[in-house]
């Protein structure tokens, strides 16, 4: 392990944590640190990856030495700003009640998960299909080739005489993860699957830490926040995506959950900086995976709807699903104006065949959610929570907003599988659970917040930014 490798880890942590602290308040209590470090690492990792974009065709050995000092300097500057700004703030008292001893069992169980995942990552060469065929093919090519070459389409590559362009079946996939991988691989000095896979383990830790910290800031009691992160960290498919590292879905899921949590904070506190944090996480989505763009549009659309005056919001909430159903009906009826548009979007117009498959697709999706080993009892718990805590949902406008976003997201997944040729991925189980994974942490956060104590779910909106900051720095 070299100084450059340590610097490679320090950079995203410092950069992201300082920005989160700037937008979310200086960390003072344990939960604050969890929030700042968890959310901060993910944000910092994405920003670090994107920072390599302007470098162009650069030698991989120069990536970290060129960028790390500048990014660390930014992090130090922001941290000093946060510190100076917060000197006169009064920290809120910490929660006096200690965690119930039984909950340590959950922490021990999480530690067992972490140990198994870590050992699997460190030992096994890159295993899952899309890891070596798509997501980590580019960084390996860059690392072994020595330069960050541009990946282009087949035709451009075939006609290129310079030999400086590369191609792959997945050439058009977003490159944030690839660039993050080359960041660490180049700092390590050679291509090592364990070094790259460690990123996914840290992502898992960051997801749990960030969710815990944000749930606490959203007034969920410590015990319930621990239950929530245990539930999230123990989900088998989440564990598999960490242990067999290399897929982009967990990154997307984490960004989406952090965006939703920051949005909830914004709705609860009324602070614009929380909106900025939510926007930062949401804007990263398309840089990770193509469907990230769809999640961004859905989230931005829902946020926009809930920023409208009440009357317009009600109209939008009624019109949006009607418009969606209308488009689907026109699509299924093969109405001339709609069909060419959807064809251009890659959607099949063989609607009769698609509808024939619909029952099998729905059955396969339901099996993946409720009957296989992927999610323990997660989807049953979501259904039960909605029934038991429906009153809490009706009382909380922020949670209603999040619920609407998740409903749109679920409708998108349903339409994707049932109404498009993507249904075959559901029938073969190859994609349906991975796409569900992208929304699972957000769904879990939503369910966890529904279990807030009645008095804490109606947390007062701080009247001044200073008060809000102080409130957000609670235990």
């Amino acid at each position, binding site marked *: 392990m070299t100084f450059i490798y340590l610097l490679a880890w320090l950079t995203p942590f410092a950069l992201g944590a300082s920005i989160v602290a700037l937008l979310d308040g200086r960390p003072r209590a344990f939960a604050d640190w969890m929030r700042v470090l968890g959310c901060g690492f993910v944000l910092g990792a994405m920003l670090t990856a994107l920072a390599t974009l302007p470098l162009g065709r650069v030698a991989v050995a120069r990536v970290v030495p060129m960028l790390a000092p500048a990014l660390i300097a930014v992090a130090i500057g922001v941290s000093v700003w946060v510190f100076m700004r917060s000197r006169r703030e009064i920290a809120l008292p910490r929660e006096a009640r200690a965690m119930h001893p039984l909950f340590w069992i959950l922490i021990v169980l999480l530690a067992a998960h972490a140990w198994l995942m870590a050992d699997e990552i460190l030992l096994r*060469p890159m295993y899952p*299909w899309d890891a070596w065929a798509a997501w980590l093919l580019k960084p390996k090519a860059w690392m072994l080739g020595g330069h960050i070459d541009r990946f282009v389409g087949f035709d451009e590559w075939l006609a290129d005489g310079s030999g400086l362009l590369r191609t792959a079946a997945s050439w058009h996939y977003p490159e944030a993860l690839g660039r993050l991988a080359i960041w660490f691989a180049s700092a390590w000095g050679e291509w090592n699957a364990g070094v790259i896979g460690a990123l996914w383990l840290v992502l898992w830790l960051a997801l749990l830490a960030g969710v815990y910290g944000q749930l606490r800031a959203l007034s969920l009691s410590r015990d319930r926040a621990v239950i929530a992160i245990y539930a999230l960290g123990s989900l088998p498919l989440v564990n598999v995506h960490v242990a067999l590292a290399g897929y982009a879905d967990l990154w997307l899921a984490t960004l989406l959950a952090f965006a939703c949590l920051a949005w909830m904070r914004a709705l609860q506190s009324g602070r614009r900086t929380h909106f900025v944090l939510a926007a930062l996480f949401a804007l990263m989505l398309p840089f990770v995976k193509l469907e990230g763009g769809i999640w961004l549009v859905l989230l931005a659309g829902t946020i926009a709807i809930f920023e409208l005056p009440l009357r317009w919001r009600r109209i939008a909430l009624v019109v949006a699903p009607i418009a969606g159903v209308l488009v689907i009906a026109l699509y299924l009826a093969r109405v001339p104006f709609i069909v060419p548009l959807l064809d251009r979007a890659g959607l099949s117009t063989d609607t009769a065949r698609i509808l024939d498959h619909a029952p099998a697709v729905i059955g396969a999706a339901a099996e993946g959610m409720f009957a296989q080993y992927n999610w323990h009892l997660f989807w049953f718990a979501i259904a039960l929570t909605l*029934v*038991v805590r429906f009153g809490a949902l009706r009382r909380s406008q922020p949670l209603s907003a999040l619920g609407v976003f998740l409903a749109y997201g679920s409708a998108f997944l349903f339409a994707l599988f049932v109404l498009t040729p993507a249904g075959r991925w559901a029938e073969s189980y190859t994609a349906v659970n991975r796409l569900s994974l992208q929304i699972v942490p957000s769904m879990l956060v939503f369910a966890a917040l529904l279990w807030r104590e009645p008095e804490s779910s109606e947390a007062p909106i701080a009247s001044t930014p200073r008060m809000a900051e102080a409130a957000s720095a609670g235990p």
Partner: protein
Amino acid sequence: MVRRFTSFPLALDARVAAANASRVAEAVSGSVDETRQLGRSAWSRLRLPVLAALLALLWIALVGWASDAPTSAAFRPAERIRLEGSDFHVVMGAGVESGRRLGINAVGAEHMALQSHALPEAIDAAAFPVLRYRWDAFPRTLELSFVFRRADEPDDVHTVTLPPAGAYPGYFDLSDVPDWSGRIVEIGFAEFPTAQLVPADIAFRPFSLIEAELWSPSWRGSLGSLGTDWSAYRPWALMSVSALGPDAPWPHKPTPVVLLAIGLAASLLLVTLVLARSWRWLGMTLAIALAGGWIALDLRWLGEFADRHVLTRELYAGKAWRERASIEPDTALIAGAQLARTWLARMPAETHVIVAATAPYDILRLAYHLLPANVAPIGALSHPDASAAMKPALLVVYDDPSWTFDAARHALGNADAEYAADLVFDEGTLRIFALRGAAQ
């Protein structure tokens, strides 16, 4: 501290307690009819036994449904066909009888071992739907299959993947296999390296077949099949990142997830009805039961995860990274890639290299293993005008006889296209051609 342990960890919504208190208060303050009170008193004495009986019935029915247990069958099988390991003979690989066991000491062609037993007389498949099998030291590196021949298709061998047997006997419900029908004349077992997970050349470790039995329908056989399906070792598979359950390649029973969800919900519904609890109580209690069920499933998953991880440690632990990186499942392809890389090392680094093979998996794997070559999959040439626009490139063809080379015409082609080319390397399953564009 003691008090904290004894207190309930989740403080439920205070309104639940309030609702219960008001219900109790109403019951106490209301006018009491003596006859009704006697009836209630008798019912309240009966409530718990009735509830216990209903719950027992419910769970027996659920387990029976999940295991597909025949309702009319006895607990133990009425008929068994028992075969010792030594009753089987080795068809592929090498083995030696060790008492009643059959020790398998080596694999045969394509790293496969096969043991078989011709039944003295054909049996009715439907009469023996349960297979019970026992092995000693069956390695995690191998996949286990059951093979059989039917009287109506004596030249065809039917194969079904079995859950690997661990320290205990394994049970398998053959009625889940559509081919298990008619008259069976021969049965056996096949073992080979787990596909796309274990390098074939290092997969084998000696093991023994202790015994195999065919059972007539019984609850014990069905429950054994359910238990084996739930607890058997499931190796990692490429499918594992997409779905856990279907990644184990044998026919499955309903999972404990389904059983727990239905069982917990139905049990608490019964409790609510029999003990006259409120719907709110049902909801809250279900939430707590769900948490208990979750932890039970998580402990099962941790066991399965640890089981999968044992193979990873067996293959890779204690080795340096470079050595671990060379232990890949597709041994032959890696060797081909190594050959190609050595040859390509003589070429300028920017040379375009296109990869062709029969299966998409092989194309993508080869492209990955040929890095840092400037490589593309054969799909790059699928565009109709591709050959007109292309600069000179090398085509690496791995184990794909569909590409034929006409040396006289210097033309290389397959069913879709033909190119002007020269053969520059040819060794075993690997050929490399220099492509110059479309054939004239």
